[in-house]
């Protein structure tokens, strides 16, 4: 491959292809992009396009839309080598020297590692050599693979999102991963093009979404002071313990007995000689300091430069990340609601997080609208986002923002919801006053809170009676837990609530993680009424609204039968009524 070909591969963006079709003779002139050069590589692209059309036949009939196939960025080669050979090199160099000192197990482990790295490198080279993509007037086409050939073709009017991501190594080489989503949940992650230059990635997004780069109105931006909420992360403990787990895993993988490692043995002898309380305190301090600094770093890495903006063509854009930069686009019409989450530590610290309740995301994916931030800010963003996404409140005109190509991009406009005016510009639905649930719900929570202290008492009491070295007063730990358990039960009850706020259904529940969900009523596609034997005695039901968005259903927990059914009817008139007697 010559240097010139590289340049052509990098510079030939799909946009150029649409503007001026290759005529198959290699004479196509690219007027829009100065980077693209006319050279040997150019003819190759044109030929590739030609042959694909002859064989695939998908484009038969749209003569005007032939676009050149683009390759991935050549820097992908260097990236692949760096990623696989980089870590493998030290291993490979140590192998001959350490040959005598290695056990069979360690040698096999290292050998497997080397083989895996080599395989990754080869796979990367094959991927670079075989991947082509192009954007025609009607569709995005992608083909890749040597043994397993994949061809994918996505109609352009189905493209719902174009997300860019770049991890640190890719950023170093100026590469990005483009994920073209169609908003269909059964489509996996959508069409992923991994290894284009960042400029090409941005151009792809502009072309497919018809969007000029800079964001238009900023809804929320990270403020440095918010980093204090990272300290309230529920992950701290796990992060603090993780390094130790990894350390011992590695020792285990190489067949090393921890007792043989010099400094560990020394440490152990010191530990056994010290007062257990001091040891515990030091251990807790170490784990906590690792955990908290880890949580801080994670927060900075994930949320650095966080910006939630509203784009002109009815979409939200979220950009974030320090080392790995991520950029996500969420169409307003995919947003059915928001979920305000307050894990207990964060709630004590007056913070909250905000997630989108949206369609077209995978099972475990979620679009975070706001990282842990002050609660008032979360409510403000919830209100702003929902006001923007409420169909009638959004500007209706959209023709001007359409891409210049004649690709049909129908944007089905949802029928306006009644009582729309209530929401726009006013307080967020997540702040709506909610109806409290019946006292029976409190009773259920108190009964549930009584169980753990009783079980703890019984187990510890039993242990004390059975084993002489367990202190006999240990069973008192159970009753000591009781006040906390009762307080949590009361909190859980007070958190329960439901209500309607204009076009949104609002429900709140949970104590360890309180959630407040605002769900657009027109997005409710069914009801599930559930009842356990205990609920039956208490005259309660759990009402779940099913929806295409987010988790699939959102619950109104422990509501009285009459109230729940009336609420369902009020939320979506006529759906449940025929089945109520």
């Amino acid at each position: 491959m010559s240097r010139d070909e590289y340049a052509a591969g990098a510079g030939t963006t799909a946009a150029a292809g649409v503007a001026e079709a290759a005529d198959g003779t290699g004479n196509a002139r690219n007027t829009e992009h100065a980077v693209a050069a006319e050279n040997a590589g150019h003819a190759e692209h044109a030929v590739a396009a030609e042959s694909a059309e002859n064989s695939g036949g998908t484009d038969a009939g749209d003569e005007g839309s032939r676009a050149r196939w683009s390759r991935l960025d050549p820097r992908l080669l260097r990236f692949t080598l760096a990623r696989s050979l980089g870590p493998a090199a030290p291993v490979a160099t140590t192998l001959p020297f350490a040959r005598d000192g290695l056990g069979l197990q360690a040698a096999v482990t290292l050998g497997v590692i080397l083989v895996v790295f080599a395989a990754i490198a080869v796979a990367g080279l094959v991927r670079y050599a075989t991947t082509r993509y192009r954007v025609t007037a009607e569709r995005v086409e992608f083909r890749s693979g040597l043994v397993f050939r994949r061809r994918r073709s996505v109609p352009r009017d189905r493209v719902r999102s174009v997300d860019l991501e770049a991890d640190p190594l890719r950023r170093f080489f100026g590469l990005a991963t483009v994920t073209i989503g169609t908003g269909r949940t059964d489509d996996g992650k959508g069409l992923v093009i991994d290894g284009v230059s960042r400029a090409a990635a941005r151009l792809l997004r502009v072309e497919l979404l018809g969007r000029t780069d800079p964001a238009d109105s900023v809804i929320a931006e990270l403020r440095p002071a918010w980093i204090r909420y990272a300290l309230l992360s529920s992950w701290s403990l796990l992060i603090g313990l993780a390094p130790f787990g990894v350390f011992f895993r590695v020792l285990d993988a190489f067949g090393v007995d921890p007792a043989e490692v010099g400094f560990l043995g020394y440490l152990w002898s010191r530990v056994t000689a010290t007062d257990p309380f001091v040891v515990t305190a030091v251990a807790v301090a170490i784990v906590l300091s690792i955990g908290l600094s880890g949580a801080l770093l994670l927060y900075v890495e994930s949320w650095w430069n966080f910006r939630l903006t509203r784009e002109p063509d009815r979409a939200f854009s979220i950009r974030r990340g320090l080392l790995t930069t991520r950029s996500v686009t969420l169409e307003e019409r995919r947003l059915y609601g928001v979920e305000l989450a307050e894990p207990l530590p964060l709630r004590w610290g007056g913070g909250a997080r905000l997630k989108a309740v949206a369609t077209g995301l995978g099972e475990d994916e979620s679009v975070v609208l706001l990282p842990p931030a002050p609660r008032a800010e979360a409510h403000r963003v919830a209100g702003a986002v929902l006001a923007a996404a409420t169909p009638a409140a959004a500007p209706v005109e959209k023709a001007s923002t359409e891409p210049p190509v004649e690709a049909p991009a129908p944007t089905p406009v949802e029928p306006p919801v009644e009582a729309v005016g209530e929401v726009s510009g006013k307080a967020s639905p997540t702040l709506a006053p909610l109806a409290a649930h019946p006292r029976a719900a409190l009773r259920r929570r108190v009964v549930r809170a009584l169980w753990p202290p009783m079980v703890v008492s019984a187990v510890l009491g039993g242990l004390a009676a059975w084993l002489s070295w367990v202190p006999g007063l240990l069973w008192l730990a159970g009753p000591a837990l009781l006040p906390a358990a009762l307080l949590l039960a009361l909190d859980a009850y007070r958190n329960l609530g439901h209500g309607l706020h204009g076009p949104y259904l609002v429900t709140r529940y949970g104590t360890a993680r309180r959630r407040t969900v605002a769900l657009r009523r027109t997005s409710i596609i069914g009801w599930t009424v559930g009842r356990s034997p205990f609920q039956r005695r208490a005259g309660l039901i759990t009402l779940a609204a099913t929806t295409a968005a987010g988790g699939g259903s959102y619950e109104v927990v422990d509501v009285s039968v009459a109230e729940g059914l009336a609420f369902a009817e009020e939320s979506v008139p006529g759906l449940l009524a025929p089945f109520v007697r």
Partner: protein
Amino acid sequence: MTPPEPGPRPISSPVSSPAPGPASWSAASGPGSPPGPPAGGEPPSGLRPPRHPVDGRAIGWWTGQALVLVAPPVLVLLLLGLLIPPARFWLLLPALVLAVPGLVYTLVMPRVRHRVHRWEITDDAVYTASGWIWHKWRVAPMSRIQTVDTVRGPIQQIFGLAGVIVTTASAAGAIKINGIDRVLAAELAERLTARTQAVPEDAA
């Protein structure tokens, strides 16, 4: 299996009326099903039970399912207990511990389910009741139905039964009408498909 008599019948009318010809749907319940007991499992006072019970043969089907779950471990433990005399006590004890609740489950669950499980299809919605300890009532409007499938598991086939699975766009799971006569199931699926095509799909 005795196929039920009803021939193809047009769905009453595209006008939204909550109750379609109830006679038409109930006539299709098939001769194999006993007259459904009245209120199955008493739903919450405000919610009426769906109109049609599942087939009486469903008791046999659920019993079969319970046996498939319970019998193998118990039988294996019993067999080993008989073959290995020294460990007999420690093999027969867990066998007993498994067998007693298993037997209760096998006997009780199918009968309770048969009282609870009911279904109804109106011009506008599918409505089902299910569960035996935890009860569930589900409603999905016709306009949001995406696919209608029929399923026949191996044990269902033995009893000449089938199920209809109605999916919507929600990730919360499909609505299932299981344990109905297989001819009825096929017919229901056909009519549901026709009906969902007639009703314009809502956006979203």
